């Protein structure tokens, strides 16, 4: 089994970088088995083709324009995923959607895709998240970990136990 957790976004545009920030946290705070590949995709496209090819599942973490309140977290799966790309909710779905479409064309598409997104509060120039989005990070991580566990992955938490 091969599962990819892909964080995308531009880390120079504050909340746009949420996907990448989540990936950094995932690597730091959790022990994951080898079958889980973590990718910081940034805003790249075709360079990811090889990494995303023939995997069983991809979890995409991204900034998403869902029309919900700022800093809301959304989870899209199944039929909702193509809609996510079609209606351009995400600022960088173009590179990524092309990669996924290409994989479909060459018969190397993932078994499943889940998008876990956060509605951005700020897209201003800056290297840190807005306080509101930063505050949602633990919840976002829980969602990613739950997703992985539902796929049958054993996830160990490196975080110190709450007192």
């Amino acid at each position, binding site marked *: 089994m091969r599962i990819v957790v892909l964080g995308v976004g531009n880390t120079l545009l504050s909340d746009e970088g949420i996907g990448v920030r989540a990936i950094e946290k995932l690597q730091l705070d959790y022990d994951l088995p080898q079958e889980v590949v973590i990718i910081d995709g940034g805003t790249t496209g*075709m*360079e990811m083709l090889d990494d995303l090819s023939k995997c069983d599942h991809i979890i995409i973490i991204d900034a998403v324009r869902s029309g919900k309140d700022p800093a809301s977290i959304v989870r899209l799966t199944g039929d909702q995923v193509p809609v996510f790309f079609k209606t*351009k909710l995400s600022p960088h779905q173009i590179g990524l959607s*092309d990669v996924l479409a290409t994989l*479909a064309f060459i018969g190397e598409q993932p078994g499943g895709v889940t998008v876990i997104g956060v509605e951005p509060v700020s897209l201003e120039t800056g290297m840190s998240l807005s306080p509101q989005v930063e505050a949602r990070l633990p919840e976002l991580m829980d969602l990613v970990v739950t997703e992985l566990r539902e796929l049958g992955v054993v996830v160990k938490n490196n975080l110190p136990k709450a007192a």
Partner: protein
Amino acid sequence: MGKRITIDPITRIEGHLRIDCEVNNGKVSKAWASGQMWRGVEQILVGHDARDAWAITQRICGVCTTVHAITSVRAVENALQMEIPLNAQYIRNLIITAHAIHDHIVHFYHLSALDWVDVTSALKGDPGKTAALAGSLSSWSGNSKQEFTKVKERLSGFVGTGQLGIFTNGYWGHPAMKLSPEVNLLAVTHYLQALEIQRYASKIVSILGSKSPHIQNMAVGGVSNPIATDSQSVLTIERLMAIKEWIDKLSDFVKNVYLVDIAAVGAFYADWTAIGAGVKDYLCVPDLPLDTKGTKFALPGGYVKGGDLASIKPIKSFNDAYFRDGVQESVKHSWYKGGKGALHPYKGETIPNYTDFQDDGKYSWVKSPTFYGNPAQVGPLSRVLAMAAQGHAPTLKYLTGVLDTAGSIAKTKIPLAAVHSTIGRHAARAVSCAVQVDELANQWNLLVENIGKGDTATFNKPVFPKGEVSGVGFHEAPRGVLSHWVVLDNGKIKNYQAVVPTTWNAAPRNEGDVPGPYEASLLNTPVADPERPLEVLRTVHSFDPCLACAVHVLDAEGKPVVQVKAL
């Protein structure tokens, strides 16, 4: 007043590009290139440690991560007048060359070939005839009747589901599409094969760069790859041998497929050798340093004036004053506060002053760079012309080869002057790619030889002086001259300016109101159907604009009449 066409992308990645054209009697009579390049990063960098700049700048853009990383370390090293260990130069050279090959293959096959190739027509292609045609042009092993049959079936199946997927939004059936069904089938087949091949170039970047898609091994002073011939965790002989194998696969494809395809497309679209020249002053910098100081290079650079190769003025070293002193940027037509005339990048200011789109005033977020006061075209065509002008043998070999192959298909002699055109830019990119694939093998040999001599150094520690120093780093990136200009104060960044290739090419009018390369190249471009301005996209795409974009086509009232996706 003719019809006004606005092509305005909607993506925010890499900043977006908008092209406005006035069309009179079926031809473009006036053009504006307006861009939202990402300039804010320069403000982010101020105050940071100079050693961290490369990791930040590689996030400027999703397409050009590696090129900003390399240029940034070169700028800081130039400010410190550092020498870089040979191994580090070779490893960097391998990374940037593999990246460039990847970029060129993907640009041609996946981002722009569909401007010329009609996918739906490929469904009518006869696999047997396609194999006969392909066999007459190249010995590539992927040109068999079985392969073409397989691709045709896969394509039919895909289209049969009602989803064109990656091929949606193309200009299928447009009157400017001229290839036969067999040539279209050939091109679609190579499109798929190129998807496989580009992976090898990506793998080279990720193995040497320690990670993909963002490299991790860069450092001011060298690279962080430890070299040990007997350890698994570092750059081993085993890994180097794998890289060699991938280089051979890339070489086979570039020489037997890419170069041949571009000659064929050029021959079938020979009318496009007379369209899209624009600015014929060409600028390119030397790259792939072969010594520690950056005074000897595998690929020469220079400035060619008015398309005349005899006018070549070489740019010779990382300290070249002719380059350093010749660059200025104007903001007269850009959305920044100005009034000081064109400024050298060390003195560059980036203070926003948005005014809305003013045809004769400010209309772009892109600054307008000039070389000794004039706009310059940058990119593979500039690279090929500057190298050819200096007698660079591999460049001359592949350039002549492409012109001869195209000539034999078109049954006419194609002169060198044909490259000053839209299709010429594509041909030059393929020539450049072939030169680079040879250089990839060469740099690999140099690295292995040098390690064989017992040299394992990859890093010199930078020492930051007290007070102010400044430096420029340049790189002949896939899209052309990229330069980073840095002013340091006690090792901290005081000013940072990036003059990127797309800034040169997508420049708005400059201090003297002279149009930039995109704008100039669009003049007189025929437009058969203003609602489907394929011809405009062909010329803009031939520059390989640094953005993957979805574009709206607006009518004069600003209402979308067509929405197309242009890549």
